[in-house]
């Protein structure tokens, strides 16, 4: 017995909202980053669920690209965090209020 499509979509929605709440709630840049990963993954679940539902591979290809994007984003993002920590000695997101220092 396979679960119906709605279960996957509900699950993905819950995961996505947890990610949004994390971005709004936390002030630590690294945790905010992780919450963004949660949101990306929630979207991946819906893509794959629909791909199975339609028996169509295109959704899975899209997930592949999302993963590529996530890897690129994390590499640049963490580099920015390290560079900012060098200058400000802080990873609080509220200290990131200048475009230049």
């Amino acid at each position, binding site marked *: *017995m*396979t*679960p*119906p*499509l*709605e279960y*996957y*979509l*509900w*699950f993905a*929605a*819950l*995961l996505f*909202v*947890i*990610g*949004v*709440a*994390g971005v*709004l*709630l*936390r*002030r*630590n840049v*690294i*945790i905010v980053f*992780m*919450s963004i*990963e*949660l949101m990306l*993954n929630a979207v991946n*679940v819906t893509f*794959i*669920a629909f*791909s*199975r*539902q*339609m*028996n169509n*591979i*295109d959704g*899975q*290809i899209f997930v*592949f*690209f999302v*993963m*590529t994007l*996530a*890897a*690129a*984003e994390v*590499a*640049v993002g*963490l*580099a*920015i965090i*390290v*560079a900012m920590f*060098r200058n400000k000695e802080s*990873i609080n997101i509220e200290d990131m209020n200048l475009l230049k220092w």
Partner: protein
Amino acid sequence: MTESLFFVFAAMAIVSALMVILNRNPIYSAVSLVITLFSLAGIFLLLEAYFLAVVQIIIYAGAIMVLFLFVIMLLNPGKEAKFLSPTNPRILIITLLSIAFIGMIFTLVSGTANYIGEAASSTGDLGTTRNIGLTLFTKYLLPFEIASLLLLVSLVGAVLMTKRNLR
């Protein structure tokens, strides 16, 4: 069988995702996120996305999260000092908004079965490496090349960003 496995993985993913955003210690958050990613890999397996399930573990759990841990250990930020108290109005607003958003999606999703209809019958080889590779290198060749360019750009960007002296 599949349904009970789905509930196990989904519960694990949701609980550890909550741990990610509620823990004050960033290392605990990172470890919880690894557990979430593993549960998601399990769900991908249930949905016959075999290749993506393994790639999820190799890329997310094996590379991205190790990078997160590396940065957390390098900067060693410790526990977040000013964590918001439960009575803070911002927490209340975020919780209310989250519930409203979940309710909205639930009502939207509940009707989908009527539009989409029954799931297509399984051929059993939907997400195999062979199928993914064939589609990726024929139909999606141009996006694939652009994605590789994106990775190159981000590689250069990350190296440039961590240089102390640009001149």
